[in-house]
């Protein structure tokens, strides 16, 4: 196990190096610079030139790259040109929101998706199957931002059930500990705060969940179908075990393996979704932040983010592998 972890972390290094080179070449191609983004209408050439000098953007790329590398080794991702704050701080500020949102979405997707997929497979061709498969297909095909807008105007404006924006009702007393609004509430015992946070989470999470849900439903269905045809399920049946045991121990446990991988691979699509849902619900997470960073040519943030994502990705796949090796003994041995 430990070896696995270490190996992965070592693999990360060359990847990141290569990636950062590509990044800088890409950044070099980006037209315009942060200066005029900062100044707006008020920018004049002279000003822009001065700011770029101040930011060291007048030097050639390789110089910038070298400086960047040196900083990376001090684990310093530099400073956002938009907000003038250290990139780490910005991430620390924005990531909890996105992570919270993504986790909520994944939870919804898993809790609903797996049982649904299982039923669909069990009653193949039955109405549950048709219904769940077709809804999941629609789930994939409806543009996330449109879904989000629909949800918002129906549930928060028309029906007034949920707040239309933000993570917390303003003025509610919530002490920040981890930045995860829900968790904080529980830690500090401000239950109403974490309640309020959940309340704000629901709509965006549902919107964001649409794609993962669809994927999980169909993954589960497919792999359950496959497992149901396996000999060992027949064996289990031949032992006259209760349905419950056959389902849980013999069918699901095997069927979930591919589903787990799928969940691991969903990270990317989740973040894309986050960009959209966050901007619709103004959730103030990393997604919308990065978008403005691209518009504002906020190089340090972009570089930092992409490297960060690469790490997150590796990390998540690590988790997946670990989860795998826990469920599937065949992986564990080698």
């Amino acid at each position: 196990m430990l070896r696995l972890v270490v190996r992965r972390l070592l693999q990360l290094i060359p990847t990141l190096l290569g990636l950062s080179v590509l990044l800088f070449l890409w950044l070099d191609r980006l037209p315009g610079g942060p200066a005029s983004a900062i100044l707006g209408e008020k920018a004049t050439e002279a000003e822009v030139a001065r700011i770029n000098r101040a930011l060291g953007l007048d030097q050639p790329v390789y110089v910038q790259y070298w400086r960047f590398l040196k900083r990376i080794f001090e684990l310093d991702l530099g400073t956002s040109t938009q907000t003038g704050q250290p990139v780490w701080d910005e991430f620390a500020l924005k990531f909890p929101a996105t992570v919270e949102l993504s986790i909520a979405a994944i939870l919804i997707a898993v809790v609903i998706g797996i049982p649904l997929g299982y039923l669909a497979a069990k009653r193949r061709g039955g109405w549950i199957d048709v219904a769940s498969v077709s809804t999941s297909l629609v789930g994939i095909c409806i543009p996330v931002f449109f879904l989000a807008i629909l949800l918002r105007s129906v549930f928060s404006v028309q029906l007034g059930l949920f707040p239309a924006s933000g993570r917390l009702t303003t003025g509610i007393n919530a002490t920040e500990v981890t930045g995860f609004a829900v968790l904080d509430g529980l830690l500090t015992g401000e239950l109403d705060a974490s309640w309020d946070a959940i309340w704000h989470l629901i709509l965006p999470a549902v919107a964001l969940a649409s794609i993962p849900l669809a994927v999980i439903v169909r993954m589960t269905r497919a792999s359950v179908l496959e497992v149901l045809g396996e000999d060992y399920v027949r064996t289990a049946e031949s032992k006259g075990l209760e349905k419950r045991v056959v389902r849980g121990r013999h069918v699901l446990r095997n069927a979930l393996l591919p589903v787990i991988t799928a969940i691991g691979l969903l990270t990317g699509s989740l973040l894309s979704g986050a960009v959209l849902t966050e901007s619709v619900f103004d959730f103030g997470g990393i997604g919308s932040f990065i978008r403005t960073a691209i518009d504002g040519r906020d190089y340090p943030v972009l570089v930092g983010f992409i490297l960060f994502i690469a790490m997150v990705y590796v990390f998540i796949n690590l988790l997946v592998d670990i989860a795998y090796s826990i469920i599937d003994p065949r992986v564990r041995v080698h």
Partner: protein
Amino acid sequence: MRITKSRVARAITAAVAVGLIATGCSSERDADNESGGDKDTFVFAGAGDPGSLDPALASDGETFRVTRQAFEALLEHESGGTKLVGGLAETWSSNDQGTVWTFNLRKGVKFHDGEAFNAAAVCANYDHWFNWTGTYQSSAVSYYWQTIMGGFAKNEDKEAPEANYKSCTAKDENTAVIEVKKPSANLPGGFSLNALAIHSPKAIEAYKKQDASAKGDAITYPKYSQEAGTVAGTGPYKIKKWNKGNKEVTLERFDDYWGEKAKIKNLVFRTISDEQTRRQALEAGDIDGYDLVAPADVKTLEDKGFGVPTRGVFNLFYLGMSQSANPALKKKEVRQAIAQAIDKENLVKTQLPEGGKVADQFMPDTIAGYSKNVTKYPFDTAAAKGLLKKAGEEKLKIEFCYPTEVTRPYMPAPQDLFELMKADLEKAGITVTPKAMKWAPDYLDATEAGSCALHMLGWTGDFNDGYNFIGTWFAGFDKQWGFKDQKVFDAVNAGSKLGKAEERVAAYEKANEAIMAYLPGVPISSSPPAIAFGKNVNPPNVSPLTQEVFAEASFK
């Protein structure tokens, strides 16, 4: 409605998570919701995060919206108007050249940190700014100081403007004298900028200990400007907390305020970048008001009973022309043809917010220096065709840049405005090649560099002085316009040489006439950015300069 809301909400939420928490908070929730009367927190949503809590380091409205509540400058504008009135200085005067400005300061004013306000404090501020070094000298940080007062004691960048500020002396406890080298059209207006608002000397000392520049290759704002605690002004509210995670700045009533105390105890500024979301947040009761209302929503909101007061106009939206980008534009006929081809009326009638006006010169009519008798170019497609023929440009093909993903106070939905103008121009037989660009930096860079033959831009005035408008464009050769016309330049600069504001007015009128005679571009409209408030709110006086003072607001 609210009651049912919270009940249903409880039902729904209870279904979603642990029931026991539900009861605990939903009762809480009722408390906030039903008792609108003794509500003591006012939440207002802006479109962007403030950049810093120190207005001196800022150049954007979102920041000033917040700092204006906590900091006051020597001069202010009358509530809801554009007339200069006393702020921290009760009265002021200048010598005839307009180089020596004397301020008689208000007595008995306290800073949030308990310090007393006096002439020394004023000079402490101006000297602090004047002596800025390092990154503070970057125009990204000290834009307004540099526009109003020029450079610094020691300019570190040869390109920085030379200093116009000379000195500040405390004649006595309540008299401060500020001297500048040359007369400037930016005075006295500049003294009213929130960027030059007066901070507590104690705070200033604290500021000096911190530097803006940091390791890494970007400007890092100093810590004091990023978290509440250090900054201290004299305003009716004091800044209590800046929660960046929730994008909220919380202010609290300052009880020792010299003037009328704020009516609502807590004031919260929230950032909601998307305009739909802002409106829906207001409708859903998340917030009590928001700025930059999409024109389409004004009527909808009014119909639903929300307060949508109309501001006076103080901005200008124009169609810019870069003669360097398309030589045809060097011909007046062509420029005039374009001017007459565009149906400004329709734009204002259908696209721009209520209260918008068609503009006939590069200055809204609310500004001293607006001239009634400038050359007019009425909408007339036929005439436009004729002019083009005369110029031998029937086959005129021209590039038209427009920005995406941006709404400005003067330009609510750029792409729509563009499409309408494009249609107009094509009616007059001009072939338009559209070029969409991201607002920042692509579009701004391109327009500045004068590489966009036609483009849309605008300006929101900082204070009531004509030069603040025409001066920004026509004081001399500018790549954006790409023309040299000494007559125009002289006319524009004539005013700025005069020391007394009153004297300038006539000069500006002349300037406007000169400009419109030459017609470097097409002024299109002046339209007020709409601002909306909750049903139970008595809104503050709305200001053409978008300088609302929320101390005036209260709940019904």
